[in-house]
Protein backbone atom coordinates (compact mmCIF):
# COMPACT_ATOMS: atom_id res chain seq x y z
CA UNK A 1 0.00 0.00 0.00
CA UNK A 2 2.88 2.34 0.63
CA UNK A 3 3.55 3.75 -2.80
CA UNK A 4 7.15 4.61 -3.69
CA UNK A 5 7.80 8.03 -2.29
CA UNK A 6 7.92 10.84 -4.75
CA UNK A 7 8.73 14.45 -4.26
CA UNK A 8 5.50 15.95 -3.03
CA UNK A 9 4.17 18.98 -4.79
CA UNK A 10 2.27 21.58 -2.84
CA UNK A 11 -1.16 20.91 -4.40
CA UNK A 12 -1.02 17.30 -3.33
CA UNK A 13 0.14 18.24 0.18
CA UNK A 14 -2.49 20.96 0.57
CA UNK A 15 -5.13 18.30 -0.08
CA UNK A 16 -3.71 16.20 2.72
CA UNK A 17 -3.24 18.95 5.29
CA UNK A 18 -6.78 18.93 6.81
CA UNK A 19 -6.53 15.18 7.47
CA UNK A 20 -2.95 15.68 8.65
CA UNK A 21 -3.85 18.23 11.34
CA UNK A 22 -6.65 15.93 12.49
CA UNK A 23 -4.19 13.04 12.79
CA UNK A 24 -6.20 11.08 10.21
CA UNK A 25 -3.42 10.15 7.79
CA UNK A 26 -1.62 6.86 7.53
CA UNK A 27 1.84 6.90 9.05
CA UNK A 28 3.67 7.11 5.71
CA UNK A 29 1.43 9.90 4.42
CA UNK A 30 1.76 11.78 7.69
CA UNK A 31 5.54 11.46 7.50
CA UNK A 32 5.47 12.80 3.96
CA UNK A 33 3.39 15.83 4.93
CA UNK A 34 5.54 16.44 8.02
CA UNK A 35 8.71 16.35 5.92
CA UNK A 36 7.18 18.66 3.32
CA UNK A 37 5.93 21.34 5.69
CA UNK A 38 9.32 21.43 7.39
CA UNK A 39 10.65 22.87 4.14
CA UNK A 40 7.62 24.64 2.68
CA UNK A 41 6.49 27.84 4.44
CA UNK A 42 3.27 28.06 2.39
CA UNK A 43 2.03 24.59 3.34
CA UNK A 44 3.21 25.08 6.91
CA UNK A 45 1.15 28.28 7.14
CA UNK A 46 -1.88 26.40 5.80
CA UNK A 47 -1.43 23.69 8.43
CA UNK A 48 -1.06 26.29 11.17
CA UNK A 49 -4.19 28.13 10.05
CA UNK A 50 -6.21 25.17 11.32
CA UNK A 51 -4.50 25.23 14.70
CA UNK A 52 -7.24 27.17 16.51
CA UNK A 53 -9.95 24.80 15.27
CA UNK A 54 -8.05 21.68 16.22
CA UNK A 55 -6.95 23.26 19.51
CA UNK A 56 -10.59 23.82 20.47
CA UNK A 57 -11.95 20.42 19.40
CA UNK A 58 -11.08 18.70 22.72
CA UNK A 59 -13.41 21.11 24.52
CA UNK A 60 -16.29 19.47 22.66
CA UNK A 61 -15.73 16.46 24.92
CA UNK A 62 -16.47 18.46 28.03
CA UNK A 63 -14.23 18.42 31.07
CA UNK A 64 -13.69 15.86 33.76
CA UNK A 65 -11.24 15.83 36.66
CA UNK A 66 -9.07 12.72 36.53
CA UNK A 67 -8.70 10.72 39.75
CA UNK A 68 -6.16 12.29 42.15
CA UNK A 69 -3.80 9.31 41.80
CA UNK A 70 -3.00 10.39 38.22
CA UNK A 71 -1.51 13.65 39.40
CA UNK A 72 0.22 11.92 42.29
CA UNK A 73 1.87 9.37 40.05
CA UNK A 74 2.88 12.00 37.54
CA UNK A 75 4.71 14.11 40.11
CA UNK A 76 6.26 11.05 41.73
CA UNK A 77 7.67 10.13 38.37
CA UNK A 78 9.00 13.64 37.87
CA UNK A 79 10.48 13.74 41.35
CA UNK A 80 12.19 10.39 40.73
CA UNK A 81 13.57 11.44 37.39
CA UNK A 82 14.86 14.74 38.70
CA UNK A 83 15.55 13.77 42.26
CA UNK A 84 19.06 15.14 42.15
CA UNK A 85 18.25 18.25 40.15
CA UNK A 86 18.61 21.26 42.42
CA UNK A 87 16.18 23.32 40.36
CA UNK A 88 13.28 20.96 41.02
CA UNK A 89 10.72 22.58 43.23
CA UNK A 90 7.85 20.99 45.03
CA UNK A 91 4.40 21.43 43.51
CA UNK A 92 2.82 24.65 44.67
CA UNK A 93 -0.04 24.46 47.07
CA UNK A 94 -3.39 24.85 45.48
CA UNK A 95 -6.63 26.04 47.10
CA UNK A 96 -8.61 22.84 46.82
CA UNK A 97 -5.91 20.41 45.84
CA UNK A 98 -5.00 17.30 47.70
CA UNK A 99 -3.44 17.58 51.13
CA UNK A 100 0.24 18.36 50.81
CA UNK A 101 1.30 15.25 52.64
CA UNK A 102 -0.18 12.96 49.99
CA UNK A 103 1.83 14.52 47.21
CA UNK A 104 5.32 13.41 46.40
CA UNK A 105 8.07 15.98 46.37
CA UNK A 106 11.65 16.27 47.39
CA UNK A 107 10.83 14.60 50.67
CA UNK A 108 9.87 11.33 48.98
CA UNK A 109 12.44 8.66 49.78
CA UNK A 110 14.66 8.34 46.72
CA UNK A 111 14.42 4.54 46.73
CA UNK A 112 10.66 4.58 46.85
CA UNK A 113 10.46 7.23 44.18
CA UNK A 114 12.81 5.32 41.94
CA UNK A 115 10.81 2.13 42.34
CA UNK A 116 7.61 4.01 41.60
CA UNK A 117 9.17 5.53 38.54
CA UNK A 118 10.24 2.10 37.38
CA UNK A 119 6.73 0.68 37.73
CA UNK A 120 5.18 3.66 35.98
CA UNK A 121 7.96 3.73 33.46
CA UNK A 122 7.27 0.15 32.40
CA UNK A 123 3.68 1.05 31.65
CA UNK A 124 4.66 4.03 29.60
CA UNK A 125 7.61 2.47 27.81
CA UNK A 126 5.44 1.45 24.89
CA UNK A 127 4.22 5.02 24.54
CA UNK A 128 7.79 6.26 24.46
CA UNK A 129 8.86 3.60 21.97
CA UNK A 130 5.95 4.39 19.67
CA UNK A 131 6.69 8.09 19.88
CA UNK A 132 10.33 7.47 19.00
CA UNK A 133 9.39 5.16 16.12
CA UNK A 134 7.17 7.90 14.73
CA UNK A 135 9.96 10.43 15.02
CA UNK A 136 12.37 8.07 13.31
CA UNK A 137 9.90 7.37 10.51
CA UNK A 138 9.40 11.08 9.91
CA UNK A 139 13.15 11.70 10.11
CA UNK A 140 13.77 8.81 7.71
CA UNK A 141 11.24 10.11 5.22
CA UNK A 142 12.77 13.55 5.45
CA UNK A 143 16.30 12.18 5.02
CA UNK A 144 15.25 10.10 2.02
CA UNK A 145 13.71 13.15 0.44
CA UNK A 146 16.84 15.20 1.10
CA UNK A 147 18.98 12.40 -0.36
CA UNK A 148 16.89 12.24 -3.52
CA UNK A 149 17.02 15.98 -3.93
CA UNK A 150 20.82 15.91 -3.49
CA UNK A 151 21.15 13.13 -6.05
CA UNK A 152 19.19 15.19 -8.53
CA UNK A 153 21.38 18.19 -7.85
CA UNK A 154 24.53 16.11 -8.33
CA UNK A 155 23.23 14.81 -11.67
CA UNK A 156 22.50 18.36 -12.76
CA UNK A 157 25.93 19.54 -11.69
CA UNK A 158 27.55 16.63 -13.56
CA UNK A 159 25.65 17.53 -16.70
CA UNK A 160 26.71 21.13 -16.37
CA UNK A 161 30.32 20.04 -15.79
CA UNK A 162 30.28 17.91 -18.97
CA UNK A 163 28.89 20.80 -20.99
CA UNK A 164 31.45 23.18 -19.54
CA UNK A 165 34.25 20.71 -20.29
CA UNK A 166 33.15 20.40 -23.93
CA UNK A 167 32.96 24.17 -24.18
CA UNK A 168 36.40 24.45 -22.63
CA UNK A 169 37.84 21.99 -25.18
CA UNK A 170 36.28 23.94 -28.04
CA UNK A 171 37.64 27.17 -26.59
CA UNK A 172 41.14 25.67 -26.28
CA UNK A 173 40.97 24.58 -29.91
CA UNK A 174 39.86 28.04 -30.95
CA UNK A 175 42.63 29.55 -28.90
CA UNK A 176 45.21 27.31 -30.61
CA UNK A 177 43.89 28.30 -34.00
CA UNK A 178 43.98 31.94 -33.03
CA UNK A 179 47.57 31.52 -31.85
CA UNK A 180 48.56 29.96 -35.18
CA UNK A 181 46.79 32.75 -37.03
CA UNK A 182 48.52 35.30 -34.87
CA UNK A 183 51.96 33.72 -35.53
CA UNK A 184 51.21 33.76 -39.24
CA UNK A 185 50.08 37.36 -39.09
CA UNK A 186 53.22 38.29 -37.19
CA UNK A 187 55.34 36.61 -39.86
CA UNK A 188 53.41 38.46 -42.53
CA UNK A 189 53.87 41.73 -40.67
CA UNK A 190 57.56 40.96 -40.36
CA UNK A 191 57.78 40.25 -44.09
CA UNK A 192 55.85 43.41 -44.88
CA UNK A 193 58.12 45.47 -42.65
CA UNK A 194 61.21 43.99 -44.28
CA UNK A 195 59.87 44.70 -47.71
CA UNK A 196 58.79 48.15 -46.61
CA UNK A 197 62.28 48.84 -45.31
CA UNK A 198 63.72 47.62 -48.60
CA UNK A 199 61.28 49.79 -50.54
CA UNK A 200 62.26 52.80 -48.44
CA UNK A 201 65.93 52.10 -49.05
CA UNK A 202 65.21 51.63 -52.72
CA UNK A 203 63.24 54.84 -53.02
CA UNK A 204 65.74 56.91 -51.06
CA UNK A 205 68.61 55.45 -53.16
CA UNK A 206 66.85 56.08 -56.43
CA UNK A 207 65.80 59.59 -55.38
CA UNK A 208 69.28 60.62 -54.21
CA UNK A 209 70.75 63.50 -56.29
CA UNK A 210 74.09 61.77 -56.94
CA UNK A 211 72.37 58.63 -58.28
CA UNK A 212 72.77 58.05 -61.99
CA UNK A 213 70.51 55.77 -63.97
CA UNK A 214 70.77 54.15 -67.33
CA UNK A 215 68.65 51.69 -69.30
CA UNK A 216 69.84 48.21 -70.16
CA UNK A 217 69.63 47.09 -73.77
CA UNK A 218 67.35 44.18 -74.60
CA UNK A 219 68.67 41.38 -76.83
CA UNK A 220 66.64 39.45 -79.41
CA UNK A 221 65.95 36.84 -76.70
CA UNK A 222 64.11 39.34 -74.51
CA UNK A 223 60.31 39.65 -74.83
CA UNK A 224 59.14 42.72 -76.77
CA UNK A 225 57.69 44.51 -73.76
CA UNK A 226 60.73 43.84 -71.54
CA UNK A 227 62.72 46.77 -70.18
CA UNK A 228 65.30 47.26 -67.45
CA UNK A 229 66.98 50.21 -65.79
CA UNK A 230 69.84 50.34 -63.37
CA UNK A 231 70.74 52.91 -60.66
CA UNK A 232 74.13 53.48 -59.09
CA UNK A 233 76.28 56.14 -57.48
CA UNK A 234 79.85 56.96 -58.49
CA UNK A 235 82.33 55.57 -55.95
CA UNK A 236 79.68 53.31 -54.34
CA UNK A 237 79.21 49.51 -54.46
CA UNK A 238 75.41 49.58 -54.54
CA UNK A 239 73.53 48.62 -57.65
CA UNK A 240 69.73 48.81 -57.98
CA UNK A 241 68.03 47.09 -60.88
CA UNK A 242 64.37 47.48 -61.93
CA UNK A 243 63.10 45.00 -64.49
CA UNK A 244 59.67 45.04 -66.20
CA UNK A 245 57.89 42.78 -68.64
CA UNK A 246 59.84 39.61 -68.00
CA UNK A 247 58.20 36.20 -67.63
CA UNK A 248 58.99 34.25 -64.46
CA UNK A 249 61.81 31.78 -65.09
CA UNK A 250 60.59 28.31 -66.10
CA UNK A 251 61.26 25.47 -63.67
CA UNK A 252 64.96 24.53 -63.71
CA UNK A 253 66.00 27.99 -64.96
CA UNK A 254 66.89 31.31 -63.31
CA UNK A 255 67.78 34.87 -64.20
CA UNK A 256 71.29 35.78 -63.12
CA UNK A 257 72.96 39.19 -62.84
CA UNK A 258 76.57 39.49 -63.94
CA UNK A 259 79.17 42.26 -63.68
CA UNK A 260 82.27 42.05 -65.78
CA UNK A 261 85.73 43.60 -65.48
CA UNK A 262 87.26 43.35 -68.98
CA UNK A 263 86.45 39.79 -70.08
CA UNK A 264 86.05 38.47 -66.52
CA UNK A 265 82.32 37.99 -65.59
CA UNK A 266 81.39 37.77 -61.93
CA UNK A 267 78.08 36.24 -60.82
CA UNK A 268 76.40 38.82 -58.57
CA UNK A 269 73.07 37.16 -57.78
CA UNK A 270 69.79 35.63 -58.84
CA UNK A 271 67.04 37.97 -59.99
CA UNK A 272 63.57 36.76 -59.03
CA UNK A 273 60.76 37.93 -61.31
CA UNK A 274 57.32 38.13 -59.71
CA UNK A 275 54.06 37.01 -61.37
CA UNK A 276 53.48 40.63 -62.50
CA UNK A 277 56.72 40.42 -64.52
CA UNK A 278 58.52 42.89 -62.25
CA UNK A 279 61.83 42.42 -60.48
CA UNK A 280 63.55 44.79 -58.09
CA UNK A 281 67.08 43.91 -57.31
CA UNK A 282 69.36 45.59 -54.83
CA UNK A 283 72.90 44.41 -54.36
CA UNK A 284 76.22 45.66 -53.04
CA UNK A 285 78.94 44.65 -55.52
CA UNK A 286 82.38 43.52 -54.26
CA UNK A 287 83.90 46.77 -55.63
CA UNK A 288 82.59 50.28 -56.43
CA UNK A 289 80.52 50.28 -59.56
CA UNK A 290 83.19 52.38 -61.37
CA UNK A 291 85.41 49.28 -61.40
CA UNK A 292 83.12 47.35 -63.79
CA UNK A 293 82.89 47.57 -67.57
CA UNK A 294 79.77 45.67 -68.30
CA UNK A 295 76.47 44.44 -66.75
CA UNK A 296 74.17 41.72 -68.07
CA UNK A 297 71.26 39.47 -67.15
CA UNK A 298 71.22 35.92 -68.51
CA UNK A 299 68.70 33.05 -68.34
CA UNK A 300 70.75 30.07 -67.08
CA UNK A 301 70.24 26.50 -65.99
CA UNK A 302 69.83 26.34 -62.20
CA UNK A 303 72.95 24.20 -61.85
CA UNK A 304 74.85 26.31 -64.35
CA UNK A 305 78.60 26.77 -64.06
CA UNK A 306 80.37 29.98 -63.11
CA UNK A 307 80.18 31.19 -66.71
CA UNK A 308 77.10 32.94 -68.11
CA UNK A 309 75.21 31.05 -70.79
CA UNK A 310 74.74 32.31 -74.31
CA UNK A 311 71.18 33.31 -73.50
CA UNK A 312 71.70 36.99 -72.63
CA UNK A 313 68.45 38.95 -72.00
CA UNK A 314 69.79 42.44 -71.06
CA UNK A 315 73.20 44.01 -71.31
CA UNK A 316 74.86 47.38 -70.96
CA UNK A 317 78.39 48.72 -71.18
CA UNK A 318 79.36 50.91 -68.32
Amino acid sequence: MSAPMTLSNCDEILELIPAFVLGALDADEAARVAAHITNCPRCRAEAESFRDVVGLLPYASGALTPPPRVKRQLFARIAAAHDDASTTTAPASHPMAMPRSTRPGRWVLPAFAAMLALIIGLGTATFEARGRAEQFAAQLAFNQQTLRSMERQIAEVRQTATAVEAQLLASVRELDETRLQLAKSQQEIQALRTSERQDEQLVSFIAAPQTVSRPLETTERAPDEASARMFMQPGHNRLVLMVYGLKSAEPGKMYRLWLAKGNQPIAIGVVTVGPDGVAEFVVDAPEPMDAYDQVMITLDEVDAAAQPSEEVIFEANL
Partner: protein
Amino acid sequence: MSQVRMPAADSSALDDEVLITRVASRDSSALEQLYDRYARIVYATALRMLGNAELAEDIVQETFWRVWRRSASFAIGRGQVAGWIFGIAHNLCIDELRRQRSRPTTAQNEYEEQAMLDQPDVQSDVVGAAIERERRRIILQALAQIPPEQREVLELAYFRGLSQSEIAQRLNSPIGTVKTRTRLALQKMRDLLHNQKIGADDLHD
Protein backbone atom coordinates in the same frame (compact mmCIF):
# COMPACT_ATOMS: atom_id res chain seq x y z
CA MET B 1 -20.25 37.73 19.25
CA SER B 2 -18.75 38.14 22.67
CA GLN B 3 -15.06 38.16 23.37
CA VAL B 4 -13.57 34.98 24.74
CA ARG B 5 -10.85 36.74 26.65
CA MET B 6 -11.31 36.15 30.32
CA PRO B 7 -10.06 38.44 33.07
CA ALA B 8 -7.51 36.92 35.40
CA ALA B 9 -8.92 36.18 38.83
CA ASP B 10 -5.77 37.24 40.60
CA SER B 11 -2.10 37.88 39.94
CA SER B 12 -1.28 34.18 40.39
CA ALA B 13 -3.16 33.23 37.23
CA LEU B 14 -0.19 33.18 34.89
CA ASP B 15 -0.10 33.16 31.15
CA ASP B 16 0.38 29.70 29.59
CA GLU B 17 3.57 30.79 27.84
CA VAL B 18 5.08 31.99 31.09
CA LEU B 19 4.19 28.67 32.67
CA ILE B 20 5.70 26.58 29.87
CA THR B 21 8.90 28.64 30.08
CA ARG B 22 9.06 27.89 33.79
CA VAL B 23 8.38 24.22 33.12
CA ALA B 24 11.29 24.25 30.70
CA SER B 25 13.48 25.55 33.52
CA ARG B 26 12.35 22.55 35.62
CA ASP B 27 9.73 24.32 37.73
CA SER B 28 7.29 21.54 38.61
CA SER B 29 4.84 23.94 40.25
CA ALA B 30 4.38 25.55 36.83
CA LEU B 31 3.63 22.11 35.40
CA GLU B 32 1.11 21.62 38.16
CA GLN B 33 -0.70 24.80 37.14
CA LEU B 34 -0.85 23.63 33.53
CA TYR B 35 -2.06 20.25 34.75
CA ASP B 36 -4.85 21.85 36.78
CA ARG B 37 -5.81 23.93 33.78
CA TYR B 38 -5.86 21.26 31.09
CA ALA B 39 -5.85 17.76 32.57
CA ARG B 40 -9.64 17.81 32.77
CA ILE B 41 -9.97 18.42 29.03
CA VAL B 42 -7.32 15.83 28.23
CA TYR B 43 -9.03 13.29 30.47
CA ALA B 44 -12.49 13.91 29.01
CA THR B 45 -11.15 13.71 25.46
CA ALA B 46 -9.20 10.53 26.16
CA LEU B 47 -12.29 9.00 27.75
CA ARG B 48 -14.37 9.93 24.74
CA MET B 49 -11.79 8.53 22.34
CA LEU B 50 -10.81 5.38 24.23
CA GLY B 51 -13.94 4.68 26.27
CA ASN B 52 -11.80 3.31 29.05
CA ALA B 53 -11.05 5.17 32.29
CA GLU B 54 -7.80 3.38 33.02
CA LEU B 55 -6.38 4.05 29.58
CA ALA B 56 -7.57 7.65 29.80
CA GLU B 57 -5.71 8.07 33.09
CA ASP B 58 -2.56 6.69 31.48
CA ILE B 59 -2.98 9.16 28.65
CA VAL B 60 -3.27 12.08 31.08
CA GLN B 61 -0.15 11.07 32.96
CA GLU B 62 1.86 10.36 29.83
CA THR B 63 0.76 13.63 28.24
CA PHE B 64 1.96 15.78 31.12
CA TRP B 65 5.12 13.69 31.49
CA ARG B 66 5.91 14.56 27.89
CA VAL B 67 5.04 18.22 28.52
CA TRP B 68 7.61 18.10 31.32
CA ARG B 69 10.21 16.35 29.18
CA ARG B 70 9.68 18.31 25.96
CA SER B 71 8.79 21.76 27.28
CA ALA B 72 12.13 23.09 26.05
CA SER B 73 11.19 22.20 22.48
CA PHE B 74 7.95 24.19 22.65
CA ALA B 75 8.50 27.27 20.49
CA ILE B 76 6.96 30.39 22.00
CA GLY B 77 4.91 32.25 19.43
CA ARG B 78 4.53 29.25 17.17
CA GLY B 79 1.27 28.10 18.67
CA GLN B 80 -0.76 27.85 21.81
CA VAL B 81 0.39 25.87 24.79
CA ALA B 82 -3.07 24.33 25.16
CA GLY B 83 -3.14 23.23 21.54
CA TRP B 84 0.31 21.73 21.93
CA ILE B 85 -0.70 19.78 25.03
CA PHE B 86 -3.90 18.56 23.37
CA GLY B 87 -1.89 17.55 20.32
CA ILE B 88 0.36 15.35 22.44
CA ALA B 89 -2.66 13.77 24.13
CA HIS B 90 -4.47 13.29 20.85
CA ASN B 91 -1.49 11.56 19.25
CA LEU B 92 -1.23 9.21 22.22
CA CYS B 93 -4.94 8.38 21.93
CA ILE B 94 -4.67 7.76 18.19
CA ASP B 95 -1.71 5.44 18.76
CA GLU B 96 -3.70 3.56 21.37
CA LEU B 97 -6.73 3.28 19.08
CA ARG B 98 -4.64 2.01 16.19
CA ARG B 99 -2.94 -0.45 18.47
CA GLN B 100 -6.33 -1.70 19.64
CA ARG B 101 -7.60 -1.95 16.10
CA SER B 102 -4.62 -4.05 15.07
CA ARG B 103 -5.65 -6.52 17.81
CA PRO B 104 -9.12 -8.01 17.30
CA THR B 105 -10.33 -7.44 20.87
CA THR B 106 -12.03 -4.79 22.93
CA ALA B 107 -14.97 -2.99 21.43
CA GLN B 108 -15.56 0.53 22.64
CA ASN B 109 -17.70 0.75 25.68
CA GLU B 110 -20.06 3.53 24.74
CA TYR B 111 -22.12 2.95 27.82
CA GLU B 112 -19.17 3.45 30.08
CA GLU B 113 -18.20 6.62 28.27
CA GLN B 114 -21.67 8.06 28.61
CA ALA B 115 -21.78 7.13 32.26
CA MET B 116 -18.50 8.89 32.81
CA LEU B 117 -19.63 12.08 31.15
CA ASP B 118 -22.85 12.07 33.15
CA GLN B 119 -20.95 12.22 36.38
CA PRO B 120 -21.22 15.57 38.09
CA ASP B 121 -17.89 17.31 37.95
CA VAL B 122 -16.68 20.50 39.51
CA GLN B 123 -13.71 22.56 38.36
CA SER B 124 -12.18 23.99 41.48
CA ASP B 125 -10.89 27.15 39.81
CA VAL B 126 -13.78 29.51 39.07
CA VAL B 127 -12.00 31.46 36.32
CA GLY B 128 -10.65 28.30 34.78
CA ALA B 129 -14.15 26.85 34.77
CA ALA B 130 -15.51 29.94 33.05
CA ILE B 131 -12.84 29.75 30.34
CA GLU B 132 -13.54 26.06 29.83
CA ARG B 133 -17.27 26.68 29.48
CA GLU B 134 -16.74 29.53 27.03
CA ARG B 135 -14.40 27.55 24.82
CA ARG B 136 -16.76 24.60 24.89
CA ARG B 137 -19.64 26.86 23.86
CA ILE B 138 -17.62 28.27 20.95
CA ILE B 139 -16.57 24.91 19.54
CA LEU B 140 -20.01 23.34 19.96
CA GLN B 141 -21.60 26.33 18.27
CA ALA B 142 -19.15 26.09 15.35
CA LEU B 143 -19.72 22.35 15.07
CA ALA B 144 -23.45 22.97 15.00
CA GLN B 145 -23.04 25.29 12.01
CA ILE B 146 -21.40 22.81 9.65
CA PRO B 147 -23.42 20.21 7.70
CA PRO B 148 -23.98 16.91 9.55
CA GLU B 149 -22.02 14.85 7.01
CA GLN B 150 -18.99 17.11 7.52
CA ARG B 151 -19.39 16.94 11.30
CA GLU B 152 -19.47 13.17 10.99
CA VAL B 153 -16.11 12.88 9.19
CA LEU B 154 -14.61 15.34 11.68
CA GLU B 155 -15.85 13.20 14.57
CA LEU B 156 -14.59 9.98 12.98
CA ALA B 157 -11.22 11.50 12.12
CA TYR B 158 -10.50 13.36 15.32
CA PHE B 159 -12.30 11.44 18.07
CA ARG B 160 -12.31 7.95 16.57
CA GLY B 161 -8.82 8.25 15.14
CA LEU B 162 -9.84 6.79 11.79
CA SER B 163 -7.74 7.40 8.70
CA GLN B 164 -9.38 8.83 5.60
CA SER B 165 -9.58 5.43 3.95
CA GLU B 166 -11.03 3.87 7.10
CA ILE B 167 -13.69 6.58 7.22
CA ALA B 168 -14.50 5.97 3.56
CA GLN B 169 -14.90 2.28 4.32
CA ARG B 170 -17.09 2.87 7.34
CA LEU B 171 -19.34 5.39 5.56
CA ASN B 172 -19.28 3.42 2.33
CA SER B 173 -18.26 6.63 0.50
CA PRO B 174 -15.54 7.34 -2.05
CA ILE B 175 -12.31 8.47 -0.42
CA GLY B 176 -12.42 11.68 -2.46
CA THR B 177 -15.72 12.57 -0.85
CA VAL B 178 -14.26 11.97 2.59
CA LYS B 179 -11.26 14.15 1.82
CA THR B 180 -13.46 16.94 0.49
CA ARG B 181 -15.76 16.82 3.52
CA THR B 182 -12.81 16.89 5.89
CA ARG B 183 -11.35 19.89 4.14
CA LEU B 184 -14.65 21.76 3.91
CA ALA B 185 -15.40 21.05 7.57
CA LEU B 186 -12.08 22.42 8.78
CA GLN B 187 -12.21 25.44 6.45
CA LYS B 188 -15.73 26.31 7.55
CA MET B 189 -14.82 25.95 11.22
CA ARG B 190 -11.73 28.09 10.70
CA ASP B 191 -13.79 30.80 9.02
CA LEU B 192 -16.43 30.70 11.75
CA LEU B 193 -13.82 31.11 14.47
CA HIS B 194 -12.09 33.93 12.63
CA ASN B 195 -15.39 35.71 12.00
CA GLN B 196 -15.98 35.65 15.70
CA LYS B 197 -12.64 37.42 16.02
CA ILE B 198 -11.37 34.64 18.15
CA GLY B 199 -7.72 34.85 17.40
CA ALA B 200 -5.01 32.90 19.04
CA ASP B 201 -4.43 35.64 21.58
CA ASP B 202 -8.06 35.92 22.56
CA LEU B 203 -8.32 32.21 23.05
CA HIS B 204 -5.26 31.62 25.06
CA ASP B 205 -4.56 34.70 27.11
